[in-house]
């Protein structure tokens, strides 16, 4: 997990793919909003490490699609849904 420093009102975790344009836009949006968040490129993980994170994502999003954004360990947003993301992080 990498961390992008910023406003920590919410715990924000971004599960992304390094090759995906929508994941890139989501990461950029969170950065532009000044939100502190952790992110991981699931496609760059290998073997067991990837398996563990995949199961983590599947708990929130059984389709295992990306980006999956988990907010405060209680709510997941699937896809680059700009308005929903803004609302959830209170920006």
């Amino acid at each position, binding site marked *: 997990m990498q961390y992008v420093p910023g406003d920590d009102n919410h715990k924000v975790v971004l599960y992304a793919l390094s090759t995906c344009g929508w994941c890139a836009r989501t990461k950029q949006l969170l950065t532009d909003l000044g939100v502190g968040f952790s992110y991981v490129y699931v*496609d760059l993980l290998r073997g067991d490490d990837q398996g563990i994170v995949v199961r983590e994502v599947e708990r929130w999003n059984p389709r295992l699609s990306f980006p999956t954004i988990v907010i405060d360990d209680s709510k997941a947003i699937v896809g680059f849904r700009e308005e929903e993301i803004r609302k959830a992080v209170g920006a």
Partner: protein
Amino acid sequence: MVSDKDVDRLVQDLAREAEAGGYHLNPDREFTRGLVRGLLANRERYGYISCPCRLASGNREDDLDIICPCDYRDLDLADYGACYCGLYVTADVEAGVRTPEPVPDRRPSPVERRKKKEENVTVARAPGDLKYPVWRCRVCGYLCARNEPPETCPICRVSRDRFERFV
């Protein structure tokens, strides 16, 4: 590493093939270049250009449905004006008269895919009394009646292993 030159070349090839087949690449050049860079990164690590916006397993057989163009492209173009990753768009989106909608992934979940794979193994094919089997391209729907599917789909250019037995 994927070079800018490789990206340029594949963008050009894909654009030419798309236009010849009545498809359109996303006119947002930078976004499209990013996706094509992702396709090339996937070719390097998996050996095939799987969708840059989906997690590939690395096993070609399990990933066949998400090798670009994916099995879901034409359905998503019809419903949302763009494919899932956004590489392909409809003519009206390309022309800027329509905004594409966010595309939810219609690929079945890992659990559903495993189930389907097991079913395909156990369900026997219905016997037909046709002279030839009919093959269907999973990407574009092209049908042909012959002993084996063609090496390359004459409509959308995908490889033989993207065909399924239809009748």
